[in-house]
């Protein structure tokens, strides 16, 4: 490439049709800013989505894309990537699309570790169908389909994902474009299935559901932004930290009760044992954001490629015709 792309190169001519104030706009912009940084040609991306507000995403990214059917984005992306491993394949999906109707393909994609990036727009609601509870809605949440309060305990996407063998899991607020851009670039660098959960505010049907974590005022105190190799420190004053007490994570204050920075856990996203990552994914105070887990292993397509090379080498048949004429054939004169 001669000239570097800017985010404008990834804008389409389509009018963006989300509700004014929806966090989806933030993610779109963050993606459009991240793509030029990935050192790939514009035509080498594919954005695949299902159905939902967030699934309109591909229409707005100037590259190849498919807006498909509800819940199947991960499975369709699987086919795109396997058929054409050179593409950088991205899935845009909602909490309903990915974890309600699409739950099966979601967990199987994570299990297989295909090099696909999933942006999960978690707004804890079905937006497009105008506000029913989703598999991440909270107990007691009042929605159109739970007028007296939701009775279904939610999934924690991080726990479900790591339980399905996710090797890359990150979480990020819906209102922090800069951090999102960084995360998307990191996800692209990761070789394997990468899941990025965005805490996306739906201004219409679930406004403020993440405010207690993401509001500018409280964000630094209520979230911990994890970085590999760095101590788990957070807080406006950057004086809170996480330590391990037995099998529990505890919040301590540096400088209090003799705690020093050296006592604080160092984040190791690359540890293959998921125990600590799961504890972080489960944490409510502070809420863990950033890259929680990032463990490279052979991808499915690499395993397939290896197998192909091996079988090709040893195969008796160079052409399809060889096969047709091999073995038990006979002549009729």
């Amino acid at each position, binding site marked *: 490439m001669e000239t570097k792309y800017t985010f404008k190169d990834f804008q*389409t001519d*389509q009018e963006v049709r989300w509700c004014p104030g929806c966090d989806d706009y933030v993610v779109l912009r963050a993606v459009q800013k991240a793509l030029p940084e990935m050192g790939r*040609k*514009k*035509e*080498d*991306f*594919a*954005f*695949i989505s299902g*159905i939902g507000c967030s699934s309109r995403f*591909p*229409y707005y990214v*100037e*590259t*190849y*894309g*498919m*807006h*498909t*059917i509800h819940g*199947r984005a991960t*499975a*369709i*992306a*699987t*086919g*795109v*990537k*396997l*058929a*054409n491993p*050179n*593409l950088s394949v991205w899935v845009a999906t909602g909490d309903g699309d990915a974890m309600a109707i699409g739950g*099966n*393909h979601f967990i*199987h994609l994570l299990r297989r570790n295909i090099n696909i990036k999933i942006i999960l727009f978690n707004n804890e609601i079905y937006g497009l169908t105008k506000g029913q509870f989703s598999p991440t809605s909270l107990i007691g949440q009042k929605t159109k389909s739970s007028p007296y309060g939701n009775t279904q305990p939610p999934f924690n996407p991080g726990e479900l994902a790591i339980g399905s063998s996710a090797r890359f899991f990150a979480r990020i607020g819906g209102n922090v474009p800069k951090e999102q851009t960084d995360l998307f670039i990191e996800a692209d660098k990761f070789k394997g299935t990468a899941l990025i959960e965005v805490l996306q505010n739906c201004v219409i049907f679930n406004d403020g559901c993440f405010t207690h974590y993401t509001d500018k005022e409280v964000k630094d105190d209520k979230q911990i932004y994890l970085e590999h190799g760095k101590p788990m420190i957070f807080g406006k004053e950057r004086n809170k930290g996480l330590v391990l007490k037995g099998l529990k994570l505890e919040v301590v204050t540096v400088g209090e009760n003799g705690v020093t920075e050296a006592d604080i856990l160092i984040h190791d996203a690359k540890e293959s044992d998921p125990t600590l990552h799961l504890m972080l994914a489960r944490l409510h105070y502070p809420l863990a954001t950033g890259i929680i887990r990032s463990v490279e292993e052979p991808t499915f397509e690499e395993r*397939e490629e290896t*197998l*192909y090379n091996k*079988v*090709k080498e040893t*195969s008796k*048949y160079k*052409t*399809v*015709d060889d*096969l*047709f*004429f091999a*073995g*038990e*054939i*006979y*002549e*009729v*004169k």
Partner: protein
Amino acid sequence: MITENNQAKQTRENAVLENVVIRFVGDSGDGMQLTGTQFSDTSAMFGNDVATFPNYPSEIRAPQGSLYGVSGFQVHIGSVNITSPGDSVDVLVAMNPAALKTNIDALKAGQMCIVDTDEFNKKNFEKAHYDTNPLEDGSLENYKLIQVSMTSLTREALSGMGLDNKAVTRSKNMFALGMVYFIFNRSMDHTIEFFEKKFKSKPELVEANIKVLKAGYYYAETMEIISTTYQIAPAKMRPGTYRIINGNTATAWGLLAAANNSGLELFLGSYPITPATDILHELTKHINFGIKTFQAEDEIAGITSSIGAAFAGSLAITTTSGPGLALKGEAIGLAMMMELPLVIIDVQRGGPSTGLPTKTEQSDLMQALYGRNGESPVIVIAASTPENSFDYAYEACKLALEHMTPVILLTDGYIANGSAPWKIKKTSELPSITPRIAKAGTTYNPYDRDEKTLARVLAIPGTPGMEHRIGGLEKDKKTGNISYAPENHEYMVNIRAEKVKRVQDYIPAIRSEFQEEGDLLVVGWGGTYGSLSAAVSQINNEGYKVGHMHLNHINPLPKNVAETMKKFKKIVVCELNKGQMANVLRMNFPEFQYLQYSKVQGLPFTTFELTERFKQLI
């Protein structure tokens, strides 16, 4: 049917037959499938025309000796054209009482029944629900009963080799095969070679099997229990190189040929289901050709991953059977809407619901045509024999790629598992396939169409300058962007239908076989070709004027269907369902009256029941 031209040779009679049906039946563990395959391969190589029909229990390993654990393999060989495995049997080989009980009714009166007397003991009578010994109670007196202690004789043949009981039991099928080879004057060479290859690294197994095979052969030759041997001359077949192939393998190979000739990588997304799984198995063996098979987590992922692959530029396939097709309906609609090439193969089985999974039926026709929301026509074609499954699989790919639409290929359990000689086609002999792929550097509109076919063009991701988005919402006829405009929707619904309709210009005309006009036209489609053809052939031989129009192209139908039907006084649509094709014809050609002959028993038609019915109708 045995038409004996008696020609006594040596001491024994040696009758020349035109064709003969042999059925090997025994326990699941008795190796009947192998025995039958060996016999049909040997006969084919000898030059006979051949058709086979395996029939195994739905249980994985049913208890020994049980009625529902009986496994069978029927072979029909001839010096004449053989189109079906035949209804009734000329030679029955029954390895135990249960096998005898469940199969004796198929044996023609007066014909040969070979049994292994060692298995006719009290325990097995009980399991087969026989109150008395059928070999002794007179119930078999209408047959030529040939009683052989096969198990003991096998044990004897193997004595001194140090093999265990299990090995003895496992090879007694070769004793039976040896006998049958003698009866039909067949060489043992092919089977001997087979074992030499198969057990290359286990010479004792090669030796054992050959020993038993020969023991059977010589036993039949020596003992005075076989009064007649038979000669079936080679058939007049088109010269060329042949192999015996079953429908599922032929289907898989047709796909391989299409991938080869289209220059595309084949991608198969599939979830196992009986009786379609063997296509997945077969293709997976051949990943060396650069094809990709993906066993998905379910049918929906099977088809949707294929849709992804189609978008990415592969020759995309998904394979399944009835219940799986039901699950794929929504996704077929998506592929249809996005106008992506995709081949969906439904190997039909007995329905509804889980139904009779190991049995055959043709009851997914309406589902193939209509099993999804909205106006969503796709191409539907059907293979009609094991060997032409190759051609229709190939054609399905060609139509999908050249017309940019999903194509549903219907086969069924009967032709998928049945086998027949296939005159091998070189890939270079096949029609060309020209996928509609946009060339970099041209201007690209995803929904620009070819004037003649109305097919759009695919721009493969990775092609610079052709970035675009497609989806399942209605789209503007020009730009391809989402459009809710009323007239545009109607226009798009119409043009998608018209595109499929125009495929009529690219498929061959139909013709009525045997008679081009006459009293009755027998209309069939798909896997019943062999049975219908055999019956129509016979009834014409009896002096009736009956034609046979067999449909392989269902949506669209060939252009000259009405013209063809017009020449007959009556039309009867015969199918293994309750009249689905008859209804398709009523919708398309309401000007005709259609009689129906339906059978829904999980079994193919028999010549007898068909000819009887035809006579009633004329």
